């Protein structure tokens, strides 16, 4: 009986660990395809960025509820923090796609998100027909995001 309990405990632990493993990576090709969706909103996030972590629950809550945009969150946390970042993300309960940036080629990846972006985090961009129509650098203002999506995402 004790042996069976141990096995059940180990299986439950393994399942929990797999749920909190790092996110699926997003190639630039797939990113470009997702950006092409109508009114696509991409938010770039990292565990190392204090504002990113601070604003995540409210931003995810807004993106979970809004019907105006196609949200996508990209985690660019460096390799050593990937698992912890996935745990932090899990706590916010996003009901939209969340991906991790593949290792390396930071510059190429930044250009795929927005050629004019220098890399400051957090960063968000709204796209129409795959083209950037609005960007946010630094903390997101949800009222400004709502205003922009009302104006641009018919």
């Amino acid at each position, binding site marked *: 009986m004790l042996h069976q309990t141990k096995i059940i405990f180990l299986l439950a632990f393994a399942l929990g660990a797999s749920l909190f493993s790092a996110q699926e990576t997003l190639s630039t090709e797939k990113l470009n395809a997702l950006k092409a969706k109508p009114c696509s909103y991409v938010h770039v996030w990292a565990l190392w960025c204090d504002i990113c972590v601070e604003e995540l629950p409210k931003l995810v809550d807004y993106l979970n509820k809004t019907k105006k945009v196609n949200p996508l969150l990209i985690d660019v946390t460096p*390799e050593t923090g990937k698992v912890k970042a996935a745990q932090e993300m899990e706590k916010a309960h996003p009901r939209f796609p969340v991906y991790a940036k593949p290792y390396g080629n930071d510059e190429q990846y*930044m250009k795929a998100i927005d050629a004019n972006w220098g890399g400051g*985090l957090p960063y968000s961009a709204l796209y129409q027909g795959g083209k950037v129509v609005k960007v946010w*650098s630094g903390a997101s203002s949800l009222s400004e995001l709502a205003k922009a999506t009302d104006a*641009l995402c018919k």
Partner: protein
Amino acid sequence: MTQLKIFLLALALTSPVFSIGVGQKVASFELKAVDGKQYNLENELKKKEMVAVIFIATKCPYSNAYIQRYRTLFDALSQRISVSLFTINSNDTESFDEVKAHAKENKFSFPVLKDEGHKVADLFGAEKTPEVFLVGKDKEILYHGRIDDDAEGKHVKRQDLLAAVDEVVTKKPISVKETKAFGCSIKRK
């Protein structure tokens, strides 16, 4: 007509921070450093061929990942007598006293300037920390971007800033003038 209106609205709403480009000139500035001295870009360029300006922060993990490398970079730049290093904190959320304490705690022996009201960050169009601008004679931007190619410092293959400095010192054209890297947005209130 509606499409034109949407385009114009989108244009008005799109407001990224545009940094000063390589080849452009930056206006001079003077800031007080945590050592109590005033540092002036123009005056420094009368003594040196280049000034490496790095925007840093006290609370940004991307910037703090470079603490040890800031010190080694300063040592490396000090050996190249034609270049000075100015580090600048432009975050409105980090006070002069905090910046001073951070510099003391981390034994920074190079100038750490406090940019009250982020005026100098605006002059450069600096977006994040860490972010480098290598300024040459006539206050021309010679290199802009990252310090090296690995924020975590574990697999550095190229030290972009040092490479650019060495190319100027050896009278070669700078091979990589602009790079990008992730960092923390400069906090502008």
